[in-house]
């Protein structure tokens, strides 16, 4: 090696370690406490992503064993697909590697620093190599290897590589597939809001399909902390597809490059094939507004015209980008996830319809749990997530928190001193932002950046769960009151009558008019239950008329209507009011009488349906039911009709698209080019992001 080479290699060596050192804070290795969380996070995120891609239900185990000084042995193991022998070096040894940089879809990790950071950090702080066992299903044995980093070459150094049959120590059986990582690093294990325990707990809430466990031991091997979060669903998150960029989110530079690199002959085909959400009609309209001839060749479009086009993008109504690139958790699963992690009385969840901000599809999900074991004093627990990844730091500076704080929680039954800050009360609130492009405030990726559309969507979702909470609180106080009244007239009052008559040696009075006077109301009581044998959720609604007049009502009940569920055993018939709401017209209910509505719902599992709302139409209030809001009902009907209509339009346009293509192509008589065009038409995210 000559002098020059020596210097340059030295420089490079300094550069890589320096890069790590300098960027420790946003790589998540800035403090001993945080480093251990980051290490767990990187490996668990990897496991979850790998399992999801391989369609495996993940089992993830994390072990932290304190050593002498401030060293910690770090072990994680999953049942994922494993890493093929020849890929191990790259996965663990190279920064900024990962297929996810090249696709527009929702994934967990977006940093790319990944597990390599763990290898690097261990090596730098303790000199420890990272011990990896990887078993791929198709192979007969597991690969065992020790990894270090050659910081000079930005490359892993493998030592002690061998193959062995991997046996599970607990069961004595061979492990079919999976990955185990063990290393020793400097770190500090702490409990609390920002801890490994909390990170895994939060992760399990938004990954209800994963089983996650944690064991932490002190120097002497005693267990000092542990957690076990079993899966609550067997349903894997859906496979997300990659999409083309949407015109609303494009920058000039990107557009110019797309034009430059385009193989299309005509501007209309360029627009339709390289972007999502652009129909033939829209393409023509855009070009018309930008005063660009439809037949011009994309390659020849100059900067001025490109800017015109960019402006036109905002003026033309476009179809939303396809939403199958997003993977929401689903409100039912959020409910399950929350209730497994937090013991509460009430859970309300909302999954909003996907929406678009600057061409990026995003979707908001919110879950609120209330009561039970949750602490009543102090602020509520805020659980923030972006693309299923828990956000644990910088709560105050995060858009999700700001949206939460902008709601007037007092109106929904939570304490909210001064209407500012995080509300107080026995509640926990989950906010999940799923998006193809989550904008963070900084490289640390711990706080979501301001965005009006996202803010508004979160607010709407929060108001919705807030209404749910308010209803619940109103209902439980009504229910308590009703219960007391029933006890009063059915038990205490008859005893007063009996005892006073005994004492005075008089005949007992007729209590019917007294009861009417005391109650003077119609009561409604619903009971939700689970028929174990028939696997049916049952609902029974009882209505008592304790007034002096006959009453006539229509009773409406909310039920979990979807493609998988059906209403059964509904002997009274009635009719569908709108999606998820059924109505029964009751016969006249005479004073002092009671009637019952019963039905069941199939297609659910136990615990899916634990709360419902009962509404009524008719004169006079019903305690335990709400007068139906006809305008709200209309809104529900309209939005339902809209969804159906939208679906049909999409179906139609899908049918139409090939026809239009063919028409165009036949004119051009250049079929082969078009096929080529559409193949290359997809743009990679890495390029798209550069601008």
């Amino acid at each position, binding site marked *: 090696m000559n002098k020059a080479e020596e210097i340059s290699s030295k420089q490079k060596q300094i550069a890589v370690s320096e890069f790590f050192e300098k960027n420790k804070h946003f790589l998540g290795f800035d403090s001993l406490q945080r480093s251990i969380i980051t290490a767990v996070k990187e490996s668990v995120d990897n496991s979850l992503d790998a399992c999801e891609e391989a369609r495996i239900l993940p089992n993830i185990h994390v072990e932290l064993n304190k050593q002498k000084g401030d060293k910690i042995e770090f072990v994680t193991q999953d049942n994922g697909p494993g890493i093929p022998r020849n890929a191990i070096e790259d996965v663990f040894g190279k920064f900024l590697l990962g297929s996810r940089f090249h696709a527009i879809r929702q994934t967990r990790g977006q940093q790319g620093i990944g597990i390599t950071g763990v290898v690097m950090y261990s090596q730098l702080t303790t000199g420890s190599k990272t011990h990896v066992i990887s078993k791929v299903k198709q192979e007969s044995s597991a690969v065992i290897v020790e990894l270090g980093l050659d910081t000079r070459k930005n490359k892993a150094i493998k030592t002690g590589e061998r193959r062995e049959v991997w046996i599970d120590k607990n069961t004595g059986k061979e492990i079919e597939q999976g990955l185990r990582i063990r290393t020793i690093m400097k770190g500090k294990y702490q409990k609390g809001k920002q801890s490994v325990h909390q990170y895994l707990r939060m992760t399990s809430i938004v990954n209800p399909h994963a089983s996650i466990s944690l064991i932490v031991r002190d120097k002497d091997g005693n267990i000092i902390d542990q957690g076990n979060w079993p899966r609550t669903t067997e349903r894997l998150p859906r496979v997300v597809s990659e999409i083309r960029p949407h015109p609303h989110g494009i920058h000039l530079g990107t557009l110019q490059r797309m034009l430059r690199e385009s193989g299309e002959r005509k501007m209309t085909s360029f627009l339709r094939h390289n972007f999502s959400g652009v129909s033939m009609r829209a393409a023509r309209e855009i070009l018309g507004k930008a005063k660009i001839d439809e037949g011009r060749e994309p390659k020849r479009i100059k900067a001025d015209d490109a800017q015109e086009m960019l402006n036109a993008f905002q003026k033309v109504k476009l179809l939303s980008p396809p939403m199958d690139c997003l993977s929401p958790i689903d409100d039912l699963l959020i409910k399950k996830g929350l209730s497994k992690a937090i013991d509460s009385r009430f859970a309300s969840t909302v999954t909003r319809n996907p929406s678009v901000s600057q061409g990026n599809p995003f979707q908001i999900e919110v879950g609120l749990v209330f009561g039970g074991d949750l602490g009543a004093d102090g602020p509520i627990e805020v659980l923030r997530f972006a693309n299923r990844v828990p956000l644990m730091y910088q709560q105050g500076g995060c858009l999700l928190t700001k949206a939460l704080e902008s709601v007037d929680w007092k109106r929904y039954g939570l304490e909210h001193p001064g209407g500012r800050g995080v509300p107080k009360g026995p509640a926990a609130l989950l906010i999940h932002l799923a998006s193809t492009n989550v904008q963070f405030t900084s490289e640390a990726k711990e706080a979501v950046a301001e965005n009006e559309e996202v803010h508004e969507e979160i607010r709407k979702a929060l108001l919705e769960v807030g209404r749910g909470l308010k209803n619940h609180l109103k209902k439980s106080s009504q229910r308590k009151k009703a219960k007391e009244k029933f006890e009063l007239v059915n038990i*205490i*009052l008859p005893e*007063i009558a009996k*005892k*006073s008559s005994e004492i005075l040696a008089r005949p007992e*009075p007729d209590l019917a008019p007294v009861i*009417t006077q005391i109650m003077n109301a119609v009561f409604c009581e619903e009971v939700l239950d689970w028929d174990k044998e028939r696997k049916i959720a049952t609902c029974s609604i009882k209505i008592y008329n304790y007034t002096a007049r006959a009453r006539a009502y229509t009773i409406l009940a909310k039920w979990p209507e979807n493609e998988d569920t059906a209403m059964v055993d509904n002997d009274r018939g009635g009719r569908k009011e709108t999606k998820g709401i059924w109505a029964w017209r009751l016969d006249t209910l005479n004073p002092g009488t009671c009637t019952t509505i019963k039905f069941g719902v199939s297609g659910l599992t136990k615990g899916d349906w634990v709360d419902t709302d009962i509404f009524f139409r008719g004169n006079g209030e019903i305690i335990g039911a709400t007068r139906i809001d006809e305008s709200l009902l209309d809104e529900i009907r309209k939005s339902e009709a809209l969804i159906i209509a939208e679906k049909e339009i999409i179906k139609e346009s899908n049918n139409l698209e090939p026809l239009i293509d063919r028409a165009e192509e036949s004119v051009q008589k250049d079929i082969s080019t078009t096929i080529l065009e559409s193949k290359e038409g997809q743009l990679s995210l890495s390029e798209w992001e550069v601008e």
Partner: protein
Amino acid sequence: MTLGKTKTKEEVIEALHSVAAEMHDKMLKGKPPAMTLPVRTKKNIQFDKKLQVYKYGKNKSTRDATALGSARVLLRSLHITEFIEDMIESGKSSTLREMYYISEGWGNGKFGTQNESNNLAEDLEIVTKCIREDFKLRPEEDGARIIGNVTFEEKNRKGEWMRINCRDDVGDSGYGVPYNVESEKLRLVEHDIDFVMAVETGGMFDRLVENGFDEEARCAIIHLKGQPARSTRRIMKRMSDEWKKPILVFADCDPWSFRIFASIAYGAIKTAHISEYLATNEAIYLGITADDILAYDLPSDDLTKSDLGALESELSDPRFATGWWKEQINLMQEIGKKAEQQSLAKYGLDFVTDTYLPEKLAALGLKY
């Protein structure tokens, strides 16, 4: 036996039946059963100029069976009525605590806490204008102890009158005041004293007894045992009325001791319905006063938050509305201190009997 005029057992039963009858009549009319009684809070006590004590005002509340809580109370009062009737018929009596335990067998009419049963017994006293002695209900708390040259006659269990001199016929702990001190149980026979000294704490009572203060100052010493029981207040009232002797109250200087004095002199909120039988309006607060803390430079403690709160609420209490009390309370707030009776021991064990009390008594014109 009652305070004032005697009620026969028929009258007591009739009074109780009227409570049940109010409920029954309401139900016959198709209305929820109810019980009407005065509001028993500080806001509803007024100074009765004629009687010179505080009594309940005109605010009445109706407890009716439209809410579960009050319906339960109504049911309980019927159970109590039945229980009292049984006791009257069989010549038994029970403590309030025993009644609380007996209520275990009353099903839905049982009490949640003893406080509930005590309060309800008082409610019934008020509504029926009887007293709990009429109901054969005894309090848990024992009465005071008395030492001094006074002679009582008490009817013992055999129904015989026993003559007891509270100086010669008792030990160091003095004469124990029974729960019933009405004339059919206790007679005030004779005395050779100039005043009655009511002492808050046991330690000070024993100090005065050991120092022979009762003989030296020609007084009867009563140990109040904190907030005095009804019988303690009643016997003081009788000594004041029948023997015309001044009642002097010697207590700690703190807001809670002021309340003890107020209940002796003006009546307590809980017993405002029988204030005229219990309250000794002529009672005088001897000390320790806020002035004394300064004048005698007594060892003192800082007032706590709850002390300050209590002082504040006393200022709004009609029983402390007079000028002298207001001054004392304001002074106390100003110096932020409180002191115990026994802090007088700073100057030796005899200081209280040799110096402090003679000086305080002299100021009242009681010399010895």
